[in-house]
C-alpha cells in the first residue's frame, strides 16, 4: 500500500519536478547575475502579469476611451475628441445649481454619493466597532453571534437588494407590521428620506460583518497584559478604551476606513436593485450613473461613462492617500 502511495505521489509530482528541473539552471544564472532582488522580481512576475492584464491595461484603455466620442464600442469605431467628455461633465453655468450643469445627473450623482459616503462610512465604522467590542467580550453564544453578523456578507448584493425590497415595498413585511399595529402603510421607497436611509442602512447591514471581523482581529491582537495593568491601576473603562484600545486598533481602523470609503463610493448593485436610483434621482449614485450612461441607456455614451469613472477613480485615490497620510502621521506621533 505504501509502495502504491509512493508511486502515486511520484506520478503526481513528476510533471512539477520536470518543470522545476527545466527552469532551475536559468534561474541559477539569473540569481547569480541579479542577486536575490532579481529573484523577487521573477516570483512577482506572474502576479504582475495578471494585474497588468486585468487592471492596468483596462485602466489605460478606459482613459483612452474617455478621450473618444460616438456610440460605438470598439476603439476603431470611435473618434478622438481630446478632453471634451471631461469638459462636458464639468461644465456648469452656476455650480450651486446642478440643473445649470450640462450633465446635471452627473452632479446629482456626485452630491448623492458624497452624502451617502459621509453617512454610510460613519455608521459602518461606528456599528462595526461597537459590534466588534461586544463580540470580543466573553459573552454566551459568541461564536453564534459572530456567524450571524458575518452571514449577510456571504449574500449576493442582488439578493440583499431583493430581500430588503420585499420588506420595504408597499405590500412588504414592514407595512404588514405597521398595519397590524394600527398605523397607516407607508410607501417607504417612494419617500426621498426613507429611500436614502434605506440605502445607507441596507448597505451597512450587508457589509458590517466584514469590517467587524477586521476590527475583531485587531482587538484580539492587543496584549492582555495591558488591560490587566490598567485594571490593577483601577483605570476607568472609557479611559482604557481611549488610551489602549483605540490607539492599538489604529492600523485596523485605517484599513476599515479606507475599504469602507472605497466601497461606499463604488456602491451600486444592492442600491440598484433596491431603489433603482429613485425616487426621482435621490439615490442615484456615481456607479449607477456610469452604468446608465455607458451601458443601460438606449443610446449609450461609453466615452462619457469612461470619463466619469476616471474622475471617480481620481477622487478615490486622493481620498485614500489623504487617509493613509493621516493615519501614518498619527502612528508616528504615537511612536514618539
Amino acid at each position, binding site marked *: 500500500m505504501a509502495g502504491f502511495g509512493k508511486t502515486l505521489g511520484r506520478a503526481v509530482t513528476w510533471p512539477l519536478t520536470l518543470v522545476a528541473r527545466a527552469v532551475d539552471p536559468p534561474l541559477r544564472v539569473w540569481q547569480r547575475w541579479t542577486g536575490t532582488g532579481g529573484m523577487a522580481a521573477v516570483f512577482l512576475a506572474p502576479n504582475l502579469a495578471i494585474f497588468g492584464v486585468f487592471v492596468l491595461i483596462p485602466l489605460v484603455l478606459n482613459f483612452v476611451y474617455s478621450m473618444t466620442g460616438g456610440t460605438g464600442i*470598439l476603439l476603431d469605431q470611435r*473618434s478622438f475628441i481630446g478632453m471634451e467628455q471631461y469638459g462636458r461633465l464639468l461644465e456648469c453655468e452656476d455650480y450651486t445649481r446642478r440643473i445649470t450643469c450640462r450633465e446635471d445627473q452627473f452632479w446629482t450623482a456626485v452630491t448623492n454619493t458624497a452624502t451617502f459616503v459621509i453617512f454610510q462610512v460613519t455608521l459602518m465604522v461606528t456599528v462595526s466597532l461597537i459590534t466588534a467590542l461586544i463580540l470580543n467580550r466573553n459573552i454566551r453564544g459568541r461564536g453564534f453571534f459572530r456567524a450571524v453578523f458575518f452571514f449577510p456578507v456571504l449574500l449576493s448584493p442582488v439578493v440583499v437588494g431583493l430581500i430588503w425590497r420585499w420588506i420595504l415595498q*408597499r405590500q412588504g413585511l414592514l407595512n404588514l407590521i405597521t398595519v397590524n399595529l394600527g398605523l397607516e402603510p407607508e*410607501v417607504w421607497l*417612494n419617500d426621498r428620506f426613507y429611500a436614502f436611509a434605506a440605502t445607507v442602512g441596507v448597505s451597512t447591514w450587508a457589509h458590517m460583518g466584514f469590517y467587524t471581523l477586521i476590527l475583531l482581529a485587531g482587538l484580539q491582537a492587543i496584549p492582555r497584559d495591558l488591560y490587566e495593568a490598567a485594571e490593577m491601576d483601577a483605570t476607568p473603562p472609557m479611559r482604557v478604551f481611549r488610551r489602549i484600545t483605540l490607539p492599538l486598533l489604529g492600523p485596523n481602523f485605517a484599513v476599515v476606513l479606507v475599504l469602507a470609503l472605497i466601497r461606499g463610493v463604488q456602491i451600486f448593485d444592492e442600491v440598484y436593485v433596491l431603489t433603482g436610483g*429613485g425616487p*426621482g434621482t435621490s439615490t442615484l449614485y456615481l456607479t449607477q450613473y456610469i452604468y446608465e450612461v455607458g451601458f*443601460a441607456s*438606449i*443610446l449609450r455614451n461609453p466615452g462619457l461613462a469612461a470619463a466619469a469613472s476616471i474622475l471617480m477613480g481620481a477622487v478615490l485615490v486622493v481620498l485614500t492617500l489623504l487617509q493613509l497620510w493621516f493615519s501614518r502621521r498619527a502612528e508616528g506621533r504615537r511612536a514618539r
Partner: protein
Amino acid sequence: MKFTMASFAALAVAGFGSAAFAQDKVEVRVMWYSDGIEGEVMQDLLDRFEKTHPEIDVVLDNVAYQVIQEQLPIQLASGKGPDIARVTNLKEQAEHWLDLRDYVEDPAYWEANFGDRFDWMRPDGSDAIPGFMTQLTLTGGFANKTLFEQAGVEMPGDGATWDDWIAASKEVMESQQLPAAFAIDRSGHRISGPNASYGANYIGDDRMPAPIDDGTMTFASKLVDWTNQGLMLPEVWVSAAGTTYRAAADDFINAQIPFYYSGSWQIANLSTKIGDAFDWVATGSPCGSAGCSGLAGGAALVAIKYTRHPEEVAAVMDYLASEEILREFTERTLFLPAHKGVVEAGGLNFQSDDPNVAPALDKFISASTETLPFADALPAWKWANAYYGALVTRISQVMAGEISLEEARTLMDQDIADQVSAASQ
C-alpha cells in the same frame, strides 16, 4: 475480463463516434425574451424543426427583456452576439442585422408577406431582409371589469378621453380602497401614443428630432398632476432613475389598479396569470384633443450578421417565417399577426378558453385603425429612442419634485440634442 475490456472499448468507440457526430451539428443560438407564453411555444416549434433538420441544433436562450435591452446591444457593438435574436429596438441597431436576401429560399415570399415593415428594421434606403416581425403590437389600455362593477362605476365607452378614464378609475380606487387609480409602464414608447393623441410630433421636417412641443407637454403635465394627486401608482415611474424600464402588469394582475395602460402583448400574460380571478377588458387608447391613438410596434426575429452559419440561420428563419408556422405561433401566443398572408386569410383560431381574450384581441384590432400618422411614423424613425429616453428620465424627475415641467422641457431638448451629437461624433 476480456468481455469487460471489449465492452469498454465498444463504449469508447460509440462515445467518440457520437461526439464526432455531435460536432458535425451546427449550433444556432437564439436569444429570446417572453412577455407571456411565447417562449414555450417557440421551443416546441424549434423542437419540431430539429426533427426535420438533424444537422442543425437550435438552442433557445430564454433571457429577461432587460438583457435584450441592455446586454445584447453591447455584444452587438463589439461584433459578437447570438445567431438570431428577438428584439424590439429594431431601427437603432439595424447595422448589426444580417441581410438574409442571399440566403433565404424565396426572397419574394419574404417581400410579399413582411415587406411593409422591413423599413422598421433596416437602415434608411436599404433593401435588406433582416428578419420578420413575430407579432405586431399596439399600445392600449386594460380595465379590471370586476372592480368597476363592484364599485358600481360605469366604464367609459368608445371615444372617452384620458380625463374620463382617470376620473372613473379614481372613483373605483376610492370605493375599493386601492393604492392607485391607474398606471402606465415606465417607458417613453408607452406614453408616445397618448402624446400623439394630444397633438405631439417628435419628427422635424428634416427627419431630425423636433423640439418638445405643446402636445407632449400637455400629456406630461397631466401625468405629473395625476401622480401628485396619488392617482398614478408612484412605484412605476417615480421609484427609479434614468431610463430604467418598469412594467405595471403585476399591479394590474394583483388587482391593485383598475386601469392599466400597456399594450396588446400583455394579453397572453394577463390571461395566464389572472385566470378567472376577475374579468378584464381591453379598452383601446383613451382620446386626447387630436385623436385616440396608440403606438404600433412589435418584436422582430432578426438574424445577426456576426453569425458563422448564415445558411443554417436562414434555414431556421425560413421555417419560422413560413405561413403555417407563423399562423400556429399567432394562434397559440395570442399575438396580433404580422404576416400578410395570415392576416388576409383570416379565420385565426386563437387557442384560449379565457372569455376575456377574444374581445381583447378584437378591441386591439379595431383600435389599430385609429392610430395617427405621426404614431405610425415613429417605429421607422431613427431618433425615436433618443426621445423616449429623455421623456422617461425627465418626467420622472418632475414627478419626484426635483425639477419643474418647464425645466424638464429645456432639459429634454438638451438631452436629445446631446444624444444626436454623441451619435454623430
